[in-house]
Structures are given as structure tokens and as C-alpha cells.
């Protein structure tokens, strides 16, 4: 039949070739390079030849160990009190030049907790900052994904009403999306300012001056939260639009039928809107998660990872190492770790949201 007319190996390769070559060279090749380089000691510029060093980069980043410390006791077995509290052997004595524990050499305390009685369990990590970065990134993703998806759905339902001028509101809600995250981050630096920031002034006015001014980005307990709030503000319009597109694929006849049956607003949402949005929901969750793991520009512009590493993230660490310290192999190892995390999570999400038949 006509199929012989649409068959052409030469045309196919000629037309798809440029895109294939570019993607192979600038996406796929760097990805495999990242894996390969992470097992070496490659630097951006180095007089020494590159060597294969196995898992050393990963160990440097991910090594953790736990240690149970018994309090110091005197000869009679009584606790030696120091300033009224039990005294513990110092961790330094174990991690520095201790011939009995060569495995702990160079590690630092990450956190500790008491495990019943007087004993204390200490978790050590070789790279405490990287561990903090992983935890912060997960906190960011776990807050941003549901909150942003939920708010975006709320906005989409609001915008989906039939009202005069609704398109103007849709355009305004979407506006921050087209503004660069770098510009947005700088603006919010002023809004969050500890002294004359807009946010403090607003809260002060609303509370008649009873709320104290907070240095939102300078305080370790509020900095990450402030960045989360701003990131949601910037990106929520994007996902509102995707929800809206999903809403508009639901057949109006379903709503008409529900109205005839006298369904309540909640019933309509629960039994018509929500099931119709299933695929949109899965897509939005995956997209937000992937975007959230890439958190970098906000940190670079607003806090540089501080205060006290409270806003360190995985990508910020990758760039600081790979670019800042020109340690290509260390940065690559972090990139691979990030990829494994993203892949695992999107596989889990796909499995959880799979079609049950």
C-alpha cells in the first residue's frame, strides 16, 4: 500500500539526526560522564592525571556511624558530674588519631540522643553539611509538593468559575511564573528583611505592634520556611494552569447530571471533579517533586546555604563542590546521588498511583 511512500531511512535520520546528536552529546553523554567521573578524582583543571578511586567519593559524602557513649564513672562506679550533668568522653578523642577506631577518623557529630539510662547515642557523619543538605532538601520537597499542589488546585477551582473578568485574575495569578526566580528571590530578600522588611511591617501593623520583628532569612529556624513560602508563591500559578487544563477536560454533561440529581458541592467534587483529575494529579505531583529537588537559585541568591547550614541543599552542595571548589568528581557523585533519589521517588510515585485493574 501507500506505506512504501512514507518509508525512508535517509529522511528519518536526516531530520531527526540533529536533535538526536545534540541530546546524545549534551544530555545523555554528561549523564554517563557523571557516573564515570564520580569514581575518579577528576578536577576541572589539574596537573595530575585522573585516577580511578572507586567508591571513595561516595564514602566521603555518605559515611555515617553510630556510637554509644557511656558516661564517665569514677573507680566506685559513680557518675562523675560536671556542672551538674553526667560527663561523657569527648567524641574528638575517638575521631582524631585514635588507633582503636581508624574507621571513625575525620568524622563529626551529626546529632545525638539519649537511649534510656545514662548512655547517649551519637550519630557521626563524614560530611555533616551534606547530611544536613539531604535532610533540608527532603523537608523542602515534602512540604512544597503537597502544599503547592493543593493551593494550585484551590486556585484552579476558583478561576474555573464563570465570572466576568475572570481571565484577568488568571493572568495575574500566573504572573510570578514568567518572572525569573533570581529576580523573585532578590525581591523577597527585601520583603523578608529583619528591620524594614515589608513582611515585618505588615505583621506589626496587623498585630498592633505586639509581634516582634523577625530576621526571616537570618534565623536558622525560619530561613528554610521563608524560602519554601516564596518558592510556592512563585510556582503555584504554573500548576494552577495545569489543573485548569485538567478541569476543562471533564465533560460538562457530568456536572449537568449531578445538578439534576441534586448533588451537593462536595459530592460533585468528590465523585466527578476529583476522579476526572486523576491523571493531572499524578503529573503535577511528579513535576513538582522533580522541580523541588533542583532547589538552587533561591539559596544562591538569598542565603548561600546559611545561617548555620539551615538552607543547604543537595544541588547547592553539588555546585559548591563541582564549580566552587572545582572538584568535578565530588560534584558528579552528588549529582548521581540526586539522580538516584529522584528516580526512586518517581518510581514509588508511579507505583502508588498505578492503575488498579
Amino acid at each position, binding site marked *: 500500500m501507500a506505506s512504501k511512500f512514507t518509508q525512508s531511512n535517509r529522511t528519518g535520520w536526516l*531530520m531527526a539526526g540533529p536533535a538526536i546528536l545534540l541530546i546524545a552529546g549534551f544530555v545523555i553523554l554528561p549523564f554517563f560522564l557523571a557516573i564515570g567521573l564520580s569514581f575518579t578524582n577528576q578536577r*576541572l583543571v589539574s596537573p595530575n592525571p585522573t585516577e580511578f578511586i572507586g567508591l571513595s567519593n561516595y564514602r566521603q559524602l555518605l559515611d555515617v556511624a553510630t556510637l554509644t557513649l557511656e558516661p564517665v564513672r569514677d573507680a566506685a562506679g559513680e557518675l562523675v558530674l560536671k556542672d551538674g550533668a553526667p560527663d561523657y568522653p569527648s567524641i574528638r578523642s575517638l575521631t582524631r588519631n585514635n588507633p582503636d577506631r581508624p574507621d571513625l577518623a575525620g568524622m563529626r557529630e551529626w546529632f545525638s540522643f539519649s537511649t534510656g539510662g545514662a548512655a547517649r547515642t551519637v550519630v557521626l557523619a563524614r560530611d555533616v553539611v551534606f547530611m544536613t543538605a539531604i535532610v533540608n532538601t527532603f523537608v523542602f520537597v515534602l512540604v512544597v509538593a503537597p502544599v503547592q499542589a493543593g493551593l494550585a488546585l484551590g486556585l484552579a477551582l476558583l478561576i474555573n468559575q464563570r465570572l466576568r473578568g475572570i481571565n484577568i485574575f488568571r493572568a495575574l495569578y500566573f504572573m510570578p511564573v514568567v518572572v525569573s526566580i533570581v529576580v523573585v528571590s532578590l525581591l523577597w530578600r527585601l520583603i523578608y528583611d529583619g528591620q524594614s522588611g515589608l513582611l515585618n511591617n505588615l505583621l506589626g501593623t496587623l498585630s498592633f505592634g505586639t509581634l516582634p520583628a523577625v530576621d526571616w532569612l537570618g534565623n536558622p529556624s525560619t530561613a528554610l520556611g521563608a524560602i519554601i513560602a516564596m518558592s510556592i508563591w512563585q510556582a503555584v500559578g504554573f500548576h494552577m494552569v495545569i489543573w485548569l487544563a485538567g478541569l476543562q477536560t471533564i465533560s460538562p454533561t457530568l456536572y449537568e447530571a449531578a445538578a439534576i440529581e441534586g448533588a451537593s458541592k462536595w459530592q460533585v467534587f468528590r465523585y466527578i471533579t476529583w476522579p476526572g483529575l486523576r491523571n493531572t494529579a499524578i503529573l503535577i505531583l511528579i513535576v513538582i517533586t522533580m522541580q523541588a529537588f533542583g532547589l538552587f537559585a533561591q539559596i544562591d541568591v538569598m542565603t548561600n546555604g546559611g545561617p548555620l547550614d539551615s538552607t543547604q541543599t543537595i544541588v547547592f552542595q553539588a555546585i559548591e563542590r563541582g564549580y566552587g571548589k572545582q572538584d568535578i568528581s565530588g560534584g558528579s557523585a552528588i549529582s548521581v546521588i540526586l539522580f538516584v533519589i529522584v528516580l526512586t521517588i518517581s518510581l514509588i510515585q508511579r507505583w502508588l498511583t498505578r492503575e488498579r485493574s
Partner: protein
Amino acid sequence: MISADTQGLRLATRYAVLVLIALIFVFPLVFMVMSSLKPDQQLLQDSGSLRAFLPVGDISLDNYAAAFQRAPVWTFVFNSVLITGVTVVLSLVVCSAAGFAFVFVRWKGRETLLAILLATLILPFETIAIPLLLMAANLPWLGLDGISWGWMNSYRIQIVPFIADGLTVFLFVQYFKDLPGELIEAARVEGASWAQIYRKVVMPLSGPILATAAILKFLVMYNQYLWPLMVTQEEGYRPVMVGLQYFFQLNVAWGEVMAYLSLITVPVLAFYLYLQKSFIASIASTGVKG
């Protein structure tokens, strides 16, 4: 029966909610533009009241003049426009051709290659940025004066890696699948060449998808930050977002910062508001078929 009054009240409440939310999304941008018109001292004083959002007090364009004094603003703007423009155009050509080949032409390897291209969608740029940096420092380039090594500090390192990407090819593939394939077959039977079909049959039908792909690429390219930060140490090649650093050396004058931010943001916002239907449609189209 619901009286006309209650109905009016309901409508008013609805609009009040919509306006309140709109204020949340717009206030930082209004603050930016208004602040760019004020001297530093007034800017900081005003941020304690609603005056922050009003063009009141000592209004002038002095900050803009000062911004041009402080940094080579036109160089940054020129670089951004050049890099964004060239990448968008090349991307449309390369990715639409690929989409065409994947949908209309039957050739060996097409299904496998399409699957591989789509798989790259799960690779966030951040995971390849570091090895790409090593490549950038070592790639060869054939220039007028023979072969040179390294692409750092150039336009090409900011353009070439972003011409083709899985998402853009995917969007073209999705769009082309909805075009009537019989039309293309008929044209082939009549003896039209592939180039003719691409230019005279498919491209004229592709207005919406070209707009979508162009807008998405434009947003990504104009707002690039991480990559140009790493590969441009010379100001001659820096785009607008990296140029911002100039305003944070030595004493920070917030008025000048705001002027520069307005200068690089307001044209994009105007462009967006003018074409907002297309902007929103292009974002929506990434969702519906995904």
C-alpha cells in the same frame, strides 16, 4: 427565593476574594517598579507603609541612570536577547524536524530512539550540570584560526546544549500525531518531496505548537542563571541574570538594584500580558497530554 441583595453580596464577596489573592501575587512586582523610582533612603522608609506601592515622594529615573553607570547593562541585555533568540529559532527548526521524522516518516530505529529521547525527560538539568562543565572546558571548536579547545566564555556554550531537548521534541510529536496522517501520505503519493511536505503542508498547520515551544524555550533561556554563572567569567558574554552580581559588589544601592530588576523584568511581563492566552495555553499543553 434568594433576593437580589444576597446575590449581589455573594458576587461582591467572590470578587473580594479574587482581588485579595491577586494582591498577594502582584505586590512584590509593584513594589519593585515603585522602588526603582525612589532614592535609597526614601525606598527604605516607605517600605514601612502603603507608600511602598505608590509613586509618591521624590520620584525620578535617577536609579536607572545610575544602574547604567555601574554596569554594562546594554551588553547584558544584548547577550540575553542574542542567546535567547538564536536558541529559540534553532530549537524550533531542530525539534520540529525531529518530531516530523518520528511521526510521519517510517525509518529503522525510530521507535527505539524516540523512547530514549523521552527517557531523558527524567534527567533534571542539575544532575548533568557538573560533567557538562568539564565538557565545556575541553570541547574542541573549529574557528577561523584553526582548532581551539574549550568553550568557556562564549555564546556557543550558552546556546548549543539547549537547542534540542526531550520535552520540546515530545510536544511536537504529540501535536503532529493529531494532524491527519492521510494528508501527508497523499502528498507523498502525488510525488511531493519530504522537504516540501515539511515546509508547505506541516509547518503552515503548526502555528499553535510553534508558539508553545517558542514560549517555553524563551522562558527557560531568558531566565537561565546557574549555567551562565558557571561558564562565563568574562562580562562580555554574561546574560542579564548573571549581570545582577554587579549590583552586589561594594555598597549595595537598592534603588539601582530595583531599577535593573525592573529593566530586565518589565519587558517580559509586558510581553506576557500582551500574549497571555498563548503563554497560559503553552503551559497547559505540557500537562494535558503528559
